[in-house]
């Protein structure tokens, strides 16, 4: 007696919960691995999964077991040379390492580190854990809202374009059946009587005439019931539903003047990638606008943004002006606006106060968040000082100083950490 069951189709990923438990338990180690990776990896593959390595000793499950030493008696197969009483010297340096010993080791595998892969989803969750979208709480209040028409049943009034024919005709049929049923009953009865009278041996001329008149009258009445009535009309009803905008635009502003070398640009690039990844987790559609500037600003594509060389002086306000202009032209309504500016801090000294003014007046009132990172080994210059004044007043403006690639991730976390305390004070 045997039953065959095909289980191939059901209960996939039975171990998922256990796997999540494992990741939960080793979060700190895995996170360290993840944050190392963001700095080491190439920029383009930042969106894939990640290999995680955990030292094996951290994973051990201790049990009482026998250690090395003592007296051990073991039987082995395949004797090809030994006789009773033979003595074999133990290898020097390794005490008590007989042939085939080591049954007490707690795992059959070597002592190398425990390596495994996590999926892109798991990777991003770990990467962005504890990070909340900047200024999210405040946004809840003046959140950009779109309206969308959704069907909400039927109603009896409306414009002809919204008539639902099937529903209306159903109503019409029902009404007609209901209103004619008694008359049709009478009609049927009259017809039957008529037939009986006609077949009778005696003549009933008067009764027959009366009946015919009655039948005609009834038929006429039935015909008078209108085929469709305003009462039958059903219209599709729509209502407007508020939905939060799921679209965002991210402005990447970067100084490409002669003072910015490729290494500095790479740092900036990583920062933008992090920001982009971060936004993809909240918004469905994200536009990215690249604006590079030296003395003049220009909107470019990604390739040009990161890789083309320019020389010349630096006027940061040109980029800010261009950003404000683009916002006005293309992203005026229904867009959540994010800005990230990267620079090595060089700016034409007279221009810095102007930058402050544009930010305060044109950009910050519309933007959800604006961050400025300064990538330099030197001391801060005029732009930093002017921006600092903004930071003191505006909750959704943040600035940090980055020295090396390793700083990016910590700085990013700091910039976007949950519940900015300043926000509450403000």
């Amino acid at each position, binding site marked *: 007696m045997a039953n065959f069951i095909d289980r191939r189709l059901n209960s996939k990923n039975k171990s998922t919960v256990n796997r999540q438990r494992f990741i939960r338990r*080793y979060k700190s180690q895995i996170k360290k691995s993840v944050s190392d990776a963001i700095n080491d990896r190439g920029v383009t593959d930042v969106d894939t999964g990640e290999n995680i390595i955990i030292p094996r000793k951290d994973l051990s499950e201790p049990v009482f077991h026998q250690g090395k030493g003592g007296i051990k008696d073991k039987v082995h197969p395949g*004797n090809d040379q030994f006789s009773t009483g033979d003595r074999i010297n133990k290898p020097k340096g390794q005490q008590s390492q007989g042939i085939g010993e080591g*049954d007490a080791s707690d795992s059959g595998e070597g002592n190398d580190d425990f390596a495994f892969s996590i999926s892109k989803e798991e990777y991003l969750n770990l990467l962005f854990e504890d990070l909340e979208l900047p200024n999210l709480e405040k946004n809840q209040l003046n959140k950009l809202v779109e309206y969308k028409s959704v069907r909400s049943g039927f109603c009896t009034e409306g414009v002809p374009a919204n008539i639902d024919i099937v529903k209306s005709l159903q109503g019409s049929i029902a009404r007609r059946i209901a209103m004619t049923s008694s008359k049709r009953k009478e009609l049927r009865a009259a017809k039957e009587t008529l037939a009986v009278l006609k077949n009778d041996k005696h003549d009933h001329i008067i009764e027959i005439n009366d009946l015919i008149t009655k039948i005609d009258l009834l038929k006429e009445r039935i015909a008078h019931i209108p085929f469709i009535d305003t009462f039958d009309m059903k219209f599709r009803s729509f209502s407007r539903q508020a939905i939060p905008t799921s679209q965002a635009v991210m402005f990447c502003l970067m100084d490409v003047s002669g003072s910015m070398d490729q290494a500095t640009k790479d740092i900036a690039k990583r920062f933008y990638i992090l920001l982009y990844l971060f936004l993809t987790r909240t918004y469905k559609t994200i536009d990215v606008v690249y604006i590079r500037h030296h003395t003049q600003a220009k909107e470019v594509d990604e390739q040009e943004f990161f890789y083309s060389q320019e020389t010349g002086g630096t006027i940061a306000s040109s980029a800010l002006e261009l950003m404000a202009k683009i916002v006005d032209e293309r992203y005026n309504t229904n867009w959540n606006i994010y800005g990230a500016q990267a620079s090595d801090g060089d700016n034409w000294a007279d221009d810095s106060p102007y930058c402050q003014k544009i930010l305060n007046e044109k950009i910050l009132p519309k933007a959800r968040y604006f961050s400025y990172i300064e990538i330099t080994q030197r001391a801060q210059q005029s732009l930093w000082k002017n921006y600092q004044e903004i930071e003191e007043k505006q909750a959704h403006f943040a600035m940090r100083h980055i020295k090396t690639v390793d700083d990016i991730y910590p700085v990013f976390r700091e910039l976007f950490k949950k519940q900015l305390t300043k926000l509450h004070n403000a």
Partner: protein
Amino acid sequence: MTINKPLDDNSDWTFDKLSLYQKEIARVAEHYRLDTYANQIEVITTEQMMDAYASIGMPIGYNHWTFGKKFIQTEQTYKRGHMGLAYEIVINSNPCISYLMEENTMTMQALVIAHACYGHNSFFKGNYLFKTWTDAESIIDYQLFSKNYIAICEEKYGISDVEATLDACHALMNHGVDRYKRPQKISLDEELKRQAERERYIQSQINTLWRTIPSESEQQKQKSSSFPSEPQENILYFIEKNAPLLKPWQREIVRIVRKTSQYFYPQKQTQVMNEGWACFWHYTIINHLYDEGLVTEKFMLEFLHSHTSVIAQPSYNSDYYSGINPYALGFNMFIDIRRICEQPTEEDKQWFPTIAGSNWLDTLHFAMENFKDESFISQYLSPKLMRDFKFFHIHDDEKNDYVEIAAIHNEVGYKKIRETLSSQYNLSNLETNIQIINANIRGDRTLTLRHIPHQNIPLGDSSAEVLKHLHYLWQFNVKLVQPNDKGVDEVIAYCPIIKDLAS
């Protein structure tokens, strides 16, 4: 013999073909008096097989990170090609559930059906250890109960606390078996009813035990000062019943782990026999089908290829050597017993006067039903088999800088080798002997455990970690002692670690 039309030997399997083969195998199995639970044969994918690996073969189990770790490990080694997956997993339950991998060829499926559904299955039903220790009827229900119970606990008390409790229990899992008392069989319904009852009852008992008001007489006090009255080897049981501060749900979790450990206890002790028995029967059954003309040469060649690789035994100096292959030893012992019954030599008559020339099937069934690895080897390992395996015995004393060949496969050595090999499968020699000797219930509640080394083999270095887990459950001081040369107990580990041990 009538000539049968052979079964389709195309290597692709279908469910129709599976049942055809299964029918024939069942018929032959019955011919050899294999008594089995009803079979439930489930076809699964590779991934599901890895799931099954991770959850120690059980179809349902509670969630814990160690299973996740095991799954990741299995997946990694499998994907890199370091390891092949088993062809089957079989669960000691009624009906007996066997998993077949979908990748197997028809021949492999037939082999697996004979091996698992009739070999292992009849072993589960017939062997005395399984009869005593496990209840095939209720295990799936119990697993379901424990999974749900632990899920509810996680919801009520948080994942972290449940996880810590499970961690602690797992560390002591090997010490959660009642070796002498026969466990009771109960069903899921009963288990649920009892569980609530138990929770209330145990807590009231604990309260009595730990009551601080000294109401008893002096004499009783004296008596209870050496609590427990006898050393307790079942540490988890002791914790479940006596740990002062454990919450009722934690006691239940201790119990669940203890029960699971008990369920697997017979499997640990019958590896050689169980696998040997299953190999013997897939070999015998398939050959029987071949003799009847039901399977083709093509089928047989593939079958023999798989069979021989399963029962291969590399020599001690081979790169592939990793101890004695239980499949090889078990299979050859059963084959050898049959040989002794059917064609005994003079030597066999001398060594096995009672079975030489007896009915082989009776003898085999008797052996399967009444032994475990240790006793099976000491009863049935024949000189011929020791010669075939070329067994030799290495004596390794830590004090010497050499190892000694204590015996080889010759007239003088047979008994010694058989004795040593048998004790190699004796669980009490392999697992550490640790018992609770005292719980100071009138004083500082220190729990004392004693380790008695087997052949002077010291404890491994993870003991301090295990004590931390024990401390988590007991929640008062825990110490581990070991008798020194003079037989006086010395503290070898202490938790929490204190600076002044002398005090």
